[in-house]
């Protein structure tokens, strides 16, 4: 039963990814012209004489004289073989440019999710079980601030105060001497030292949202009859809370993994520019501006893939946790 459910979920990923790839490709191709025309226009604007024959040659080389549908299939075929294409702007394969940054992006995202959970979980429980207390009001206020302040502003404020109070610059993810170095213990430690600031900034909004949602969910569950039943059995309040309402509100927590990934990744892009992090954010935004088709496209595809995997993981975890999802609709009744 469970295996079939998982298989089904995996099969559903395929059409999702196909549609996503088509959407990404279309959106990137929506603006007038392509990378080469943008390049020529830029060169002409700077008074240089563009070598039109070279540009024509490049266009042919990369198949830009073909219809978009055909290019799309070439691109997808490449992706399936692990070939993420070639960046025009950097004149290098996408994989080389992106490689290290992708890893850093994943580390930042993962750390942010863990941070969100660790902070949101106890606060949410506290707020729900101490509804309308001073603690609840205070945490609610903090949470609303976290929700309302945009990431980039929070980043600027952090940088300002870090500079004023500690006299340090908190930009970047590793100390400058480790840039473009292979991963080592020293680099890893430097990473950890820098990581907490972007994680707090990126996670602030999500954490606040999650606290609100967990509080509301748990308050609902605390009203439920089965919680009264549990206490009527004589369970101590803490144990009754953990076994029943908390377990039920976990559902939402887990199904949120899929939602939280894209928002963290996109929030991270903006923060990355402000804090000049060596993640993929700044790269992606530059690539989109210059219509560096394969760099931007392959990159977005990779992020979509991550998100779909996140959703899959949350689906499987939900099925393991909640028998209703696992068993309902089964023919045994």
């Amino acid at each position, binding site marked *: 039963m469970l295996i079939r459910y998982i298989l089904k979920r995996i099969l559903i990923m395929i059409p999702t990814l196909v549609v996503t790839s088509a959407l990404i490709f279309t959106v990137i191709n929506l603006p007038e012209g392509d990378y080469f025309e943008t390049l020529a226009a830029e060169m002409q604007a700077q008074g240089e004489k563009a070598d039109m024959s070279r540009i024509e040659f490049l266009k042919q080389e990369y198949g830009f004289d073909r219809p978009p549908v055909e290019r799309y299939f070439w691109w997808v075929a490449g992706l399936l073989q692990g070939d993420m294409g070639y960046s025009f702007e950097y004149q290098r394969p996408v994989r080389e440019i992106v490689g290290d940054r992708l890893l850093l992006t994943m580390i930042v995202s993962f750390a942010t999710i863990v941070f969100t959970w660790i902070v949101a979980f106890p606060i949410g429980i506290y707020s729900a079980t101490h509804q309308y207390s001073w603690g609840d009001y205070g945490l609610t206020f903090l949470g609303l601030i976290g929700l309302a302040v945009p990431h980039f502003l929070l980043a600027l404020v952090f940088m300002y105060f870090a500079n004023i109070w500690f006299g340090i610059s908190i930009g970047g993810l590793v100390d400058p001497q480790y840039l473009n170095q292979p991963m080592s213990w020293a680099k890893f430690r430097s990473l950890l030292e820098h990581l907490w600031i972007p994680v707090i900034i990126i996670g602030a909004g999500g954490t606040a949202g999650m606290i609100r949602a967990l509080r509301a969910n748990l308050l609902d569950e605390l009203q439920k009859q089965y919680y009264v*039943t549990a206490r009527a059995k*004589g369970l*101590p309040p803490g144990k009754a809370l953990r076994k029943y309402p908390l377990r*039920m509100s976990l559902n939402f927590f887990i199904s949120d993994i899929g939602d939280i990934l894209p928002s963290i990744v996109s929030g991270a892009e903006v923060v990355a520019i402000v804090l000049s992090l060596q993640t993929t954010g700044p790269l992606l935004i530059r690539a989109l501006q210059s219509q560096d088709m394969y760099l931007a496209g392959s990159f977005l595809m990779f992020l979509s893939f991550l998100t779909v995997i996140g959703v899959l993981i949350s689906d499987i975890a939900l099925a393991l946790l909640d028998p209703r999802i696992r*068993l309902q*609709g089964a*023919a045994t009744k």
Partner: protein
Amino acid sequence: MDILRISDLRIGFTVHGLAREVVKGVSLRVPAGKTVALVGESGSGKSVISQAIMGLLPRAGAVTDGEILFRDPLSPRSVVDIAALPPEGEGIRELRGGRIGMIFQEPMSSLSPVHTIGNQIEEALLLHRPMPKASARGLIEAMLKRVGFKNPQRAFDMYAFELSGGLRQRAMLAMALICQPALLIADEPTTALDVTIQAQVLDLMRELQAEMGMAILLITHDLGVVANMADEVVVIFHGEIMERGPVEDIFRHPRHPYLKALLNASPHFDMQEGERLVALREARPRPVATAPAPKPTADAAPLLAVRNLQKTYVTGSRGFFGKGSLTTIKAVDNVSFDIRRGECLGLVGESGCGKTTVSKIIMRAITANAGEVIFDDGRERVDVLGLEGEALRAFRPRIQMIFQDPVSSLSPRMTVMNILREPLTIHDRGETAEQTDRVKALMQDVGLDTRFLNRYPHSFSGGQRQRIGIARALALDPDLIICDEPVSALDVSVQAQILNLLKDLQAERGLTFLFISHNLAVVNYMADRIAVMANGRIVELAPRHTLFTRPVHPYTKALLRSVPFADLDRKLDFKLAAPGGASDDSHWGEAFRTGQDASALTHLPLGDGHYVLARPNADVREMVP
């Protein structure tokens, strides 16, 4: 010896800084091994008392005065004052579940949906009587068997949503009784169940009481249940005890006017033709209608003719490519009936029998697989299921609906004015000023003050909300109104008001009702003819009086037998209830059972518009008693 002795109990609630006393000096006692019924309407404080006994009062509430003395028969010398125990302390937790068990009204929501039945019962057992898991499992399975699970090993690992309502309540009983408590508090334990299942669960409670010698505090508003279960009765009204005493005294010589009124407000089978229910508090007087509607002629074509309606649902695990084990459930199976102009046709059956599906098909909310519905108002014949687009939209005002739940059927974000005006706006009836006048007239028709028009639904009581729902259904002057369990969410006294209102409206306007209910007494009060549904088919259809005096089909008989009367001389015969529920056709007589060929059953006429579903070769004379 009294297990429980409550004296001068006062409970106060503080909401938004306002203190309010909801239990005002209540004293009662529960003798060992006896059943005491606590009777009252919602809001009378009866549930609050039970919460106080368990130490489970909501945070806003507290015992302000009085004592709740619990004397455990296992150690009769020591008496515990529950009201004085700290609410989450060790002392009260030992009593809860260990010495005092409790079951609740909603068997679905009282069990956790994500834990197995066995896990939840085991928790209660191990908490109070630590033992190895294996021996716990043995005890639990024995208990599950005792409360009526056919396969206790399997039931142990099942989840609540895999069980029917009756089985869930049995599982709750097993959980409450696993530690052999001295007192069982049952808070409306059968209100959410069908009558036949109710009879079984009540029977089980009595048997277990006899075996284990526990006392039961039964909280209910159903006097029929009280008459069949209780040794002593306590009647409570607005937090004060009106009357108490042995059940014989209470039913044979009710002294207090409140109790008499309560007895008069509940519909019962012995009502005279034309007898009206007397509501506890008469509602706002309504303007008298100018002239009564003309009586319809009997030989005219029926207003609504339903023929051979079929609706199947496919459930089961579906493989990714549409394969897998699929089961087809016939929700509605070859249903035919007529509704005559100006009559009230009752549609009765247990939950899941398909009665609501029929109403939804007539409303065109779901699509039938086959069959036809002909609407004929004397001027034109309309094929309801064949209507599409604009024609359907233009037809919709002719049939309107009154829903069961007065809370969720009104939008909380619309004022009463907007709610009542919406149908008029949708169907372009008149200018704004005309619409406003119409809305005001509707409010008066259903007995509500027109000053309420700018309020939101939350500021009304359940009965008032149901009046708003009725006004909304009347707004477009429909020919047919489908009432889907319109009073089952209301208290007895309010129920009487609403039923009387519907009757009056019908008489004044010549309305036609399809009245769906599981409550036979209510249908008896409202309907002219009654159709009984089981397993998606109409098994018997007869004029009201005939059905109640000369039922033929075994299902109808079982339903009628299972209704508890508020009368000590007609106690339920619990043993007659079929173990698998009344709709299990293996207990029906040969003549009523589906043979190899499903189409073999037909509606046999028994005369006077009485039809029963049986084999065509069955002997009609033999069936009629």
